[in-house]
Every structure is written in C-alpha cells, then in structure tokens.
C-alpha cells in the first residue's frame, strides 16, 4: 500500500512486475519506430536486414532519406509555420483571458468561463467541421453580396491555424491562469507604492512572474499544433501539414523514411517536453 504499511514480499514483487510490464507496453511502440529507422529494408517491418543510415541521408530511389525527401520536408515547414502562428495567437489571447478571469469581475463571468472550457470537450473532428461549415457560409455570403471570393476562408492553412487556435487557446488560458492565481497582488501594490506606474508594475513584476507559464504554454501550444490531426484533417487544403502528409504515406504503405522522421520528431518533442518540465519546475521554487 504505502511504504509504512508492512506487506508480504510476494505481493510487492507482483506489483513491481506489473509496473515494469506497464512501462514495456508504454515504450514498445516508440522503441520499434526508432529501431526500424535503421533497418536496411524497403518496409518498416521484420525481418531485420541490417543497419543503414539511408533513411536519413539516402538520395537514390527508392532509398530516399528524410533529409532528401522534399515533400516531407515541405510538410515539416508547413507544420512549423502553422504551429508558430497558433502559438503566438493562443498565448496572447490566453494571457488576456487569464487576466480577465483572474483579475476582474463582471456579470456572466462564470458562464463565459464554462464556454471557454468547452473546446476541450468538443471532439476535434466536430470543431473542424463546424469551423469549415461556418467559414464557408461567410465566404459564400460575401461572394453573393459583393462578389469577392475570399480564398482564405476556404480549406487551407488559414483555417487550419484558426481551427487549432480555437482549442489550443483553452489550454494556454488554463496554464497561464493557474500561474496568475498564485501571484500575490500585494507585490504589484508594493511596486505601485514604490513609485511604479501601473504599466511599469505590470511589465516589471507581473509579466516576469508569469514568464515560466508563458514559456510552458507556448511549448505546449506549439506541440499540440504540430501534432494535431483531427481538426486539421477537416480543414486542410492543398498544403499538407506533417501529420496529414504522414497519414497519407502510412495509408499507402511507406518506406522506413517515416521511421526516420518519427525518430527525429521524438527527439525534438522529447527535448521540448523536458524543457517545459524544467521551466515549470523552476517556477515552483
């Protein structure tokens, strides 16, 4: 149960075995993805044909490595572009929301808070189609009324960014609010008391205090956007972000170049994850 309650050895051993098996289950898919990136075979499957780095650097058909696969590299660029804008927008709006919910009082605040949590309980596919339907209705309406064809309201990167922003903002709002809630308002009052203007107090006291949460929220937003599939699937146009491009390849059956790409993704997002953990942990001290 807990260490201070004596338990039979057998029971403890059984429990530890279960935990070990759980971690095998947790890590197995990731390990095989990584390992098969080095398999000298045209398919990411058994048998093992010997090691190769061709899936990273190769440029002879069919051994096209990830660094020479223009299509996939382009889609990485598209994803980074989308993720960048989603991060900027959602952290900015999330910060405003945090101040609104934590620092001000107005009628209907609770209702607004509930509504702003709702994107978390709306399945991503539905969020995607609702934005698709609505933006299409606006585009059609404008076209009929004044004859302009607003291309950005049709499926494409703009809608992908908007769609991801719609639910990522809920996450950033929660992360930043949680930090702001812990802020001792008397620190700001002390700054005012020492002669700071409201604006100066905000920039010199409050924002630095929020910094770990802002960075943490930014990392989470970037990763959520980069990895999003459901909402993106419904809103994507001709430029495919990475997840969509990979999905298409997977459906067709791909060479282990996908493993190589996945391995790189794991390394990058694992690194970002650790970074965000450390940023958040520092903020607790």
């Amino acid at each position: 149960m807990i260490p201070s309650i004596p338990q039979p050895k057998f029971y403890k051993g059984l429990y530890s075995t279960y935990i070990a098996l759980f971690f095998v289950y947790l890590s197995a898919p990731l390990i095989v993805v990584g390992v098969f990136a080095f398999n000298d075979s045209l398919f990411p499957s058994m048998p093992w044909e010997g090691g190769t780095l061709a899936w990273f650097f190769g440029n002879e058909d069919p051994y096209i490595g990830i660094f020479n696969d223009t299509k996939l590299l382009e889609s990485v660029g598209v994803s980074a572009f989308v993720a960048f804008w989603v991060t900027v927008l959602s952290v900015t709006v999330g910060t405003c929301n945090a101040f609104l919910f934590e620092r001000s009082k107005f009628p209907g605040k609770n209702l607004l808070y509930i509504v702003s949590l709702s994107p978390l309980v709306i399945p991503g596919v539905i969020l995607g189609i609702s934005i698709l339907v609505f933006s299409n209705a606006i585009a059609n309406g404008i076209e009929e009324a004044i004859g302009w064809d607003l291309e950005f309201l049709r499926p494409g990167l703009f809608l992908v960014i908007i769609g991801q922003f719609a639910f990522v903002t809920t996450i950033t709002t929660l992360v930043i609010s949680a930090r702001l809630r812990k802020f001792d308002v008397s620190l700001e009052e002390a700054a005012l008391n020492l002669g700071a203007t409201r604006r100066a107090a905000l920039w010199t006291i409050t924002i630095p205090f929020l910094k770990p949460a802002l960075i943490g929220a930014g990392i989470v937003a970037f990763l959520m956007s980069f990895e999003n599939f459901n909402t993106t699937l419904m809103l994507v146009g001709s430029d495919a972000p990475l997840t969509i491009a990979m999905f298409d390849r997977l459906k067709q059956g791909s060479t282990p170049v996908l493993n190589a790409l996945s391995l790189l993704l794991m390394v990058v997002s694992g690194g970002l994850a650790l970074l965000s953990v450390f940023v958040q942990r520092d903020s607790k001290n």
Partner: protein
Amino acid sequence: MNKSASITTGGTFRFGLLLLAMPLLLWLFLLVILPHVDLFLVSMRERISYGKYEFSLINYIEFFAEPLYWNTYVRTAVMSIFATALTLIIGFPVSYYIAKVMRGKGKNVLFLMCLIPFWVSELVRTFGWMILLRESGVISNFLQWAGLADGPVEMLYNDAAIMVGLVYTSMLFMVVPLVSVLDSLDDSLIEAGYDLGGNTFTVTRDIVIPHAMPGIASGCIVVFMLTLGNYLTPNLLGGKDSLWFTEQIYTQFITRFNWESGSAFGFLLLILSSVIVWVGLKLSKQTLSETVG
C-alpha cells in the same frame, strides 16, 4: 489589462474591461459558438438544387433509417466506454504506485517516463503499434521464433488492435489526474485505516477510491471524449472495418461532399459526447471547471 486590477472610475474601467474581453469574445463567438450554431442549422436543411435549401429533418431521419449509421454510432459509444474502463483499470495501479508507493526522485522520474511518450504525435505512436502488430511485424515474428505460431499472425485490423491503440493513446489523460488526486491523499488517512483494523482491500475501497473519485471522473470523462472523437487510431489499426463514427463524418464531408448529412452526424456525435460527459459529471458530483481546470 491593468485597469481591471482595481476599481477605477466607471467609464475607463468599463472600456478597459471591454478591451481585455475582446479577444475572448471574438474567439468564443467566431470560432466556437457561431460555428456550432451554424453546424446545427446546416444539419436541419435539405439541398433542393444548387444554392437552394429547405428546412428539413431528412438528415436525421436518414441516420435512423440506415442501420449502418446508427450501428456505427452505438458501436463507437460502446467501444469508447469499454476503452475508458480498460484505461482506468490499467492506469489506476500505475498511478497509485507513482503517487503513493514511490518516494523522492524516483517518483518524479517514473511520472516523467509516463508522460514522455505522449509528447510524441499520436500518429507516431499508432505507427509503432502497426509495426508491432502487423503480419510481418515484431510480435508475429517473435511468436514464430518462440514456436508459439506456425506462420505469420495478423494482429492488425481487428477490434482488439483498436482497443490496444485507444487505451495506449488515452493513458496519459487517465494517469495525470489520477496521480495528482492520489498525491493529495494524506498518507495518514491510509495509516489511520490500517490502524483501525482495515486491510488492503477495505482501505482501497473505503478510503483510496472515494478520495480519488474526482480524478477518476475527470480522467474517464476526458478519455471517453477523446476516444469517441478519435479518427487516427481506429482508422489505422482497425482498417476498413473499423466502423468508427468519425469516419462516417469524414466520408459525408470529404468523400461524398454531403455537408448537410455530415453536419447532422457531427451534431449527433456532439450530443452523445456531451450527454455522457454530463452524466459522468452528475454521477461523480463534479463540475466541468473542476474536472478540466
């Protein structure tokens, strides 16, 4: 945003508040509320000819008339509930181990190890399961090598494979709330339970689980919702016969370009998700803000 921190004279205060609330209102109205209202309206109309629509319930009637549709709907709901229960059963002992059995550094390390797989895209994780489960995959080869199977075994493209993938992909959302709620359980309550004569079973039933109820509820709600709305995992691990409701929505929207019917399906899925989330909250006496906040 600075004006809101304290009480200022009426006019400027209102203006400042409005400025601060603007992004929120734009976000919620343009991207959440109005799109869903529109989705509902579109689902309630019938296309007569190009650009001409009429109010109609035909899309919903079609849903109930066609067994494939509502079978898929019910199947998705049942499988999601099953996956949620399975995730809870597998994740609870692990969360308990991390929160209550481990101490000090090891605890944080184990918790991080639980989280790290989930920073990798769901696509990559599902890809991993495909490599493991397919006919030419790792497990099939292992079974043959170990003499447990005579020929290649196809473990992909069935419900069990879908379940394995769904549970895997949901685990994070179960473990995190459970660890945090179990972490908040004071050791002395468990000790008091034993001190008063309880054993592992009764202390777990009477003290640990009631205490963990909020975490169990929020974990289950989030997992259920994500599973219900999942597209990738059933599609890739279940193959053609996965019959997941999100696939029907995709087909209506993208393949058949029947947005009216697709909207109706979307709305039905949203209702299913909301009703079950609501029932879950009622049963566990939680509120939405507590659950996700």
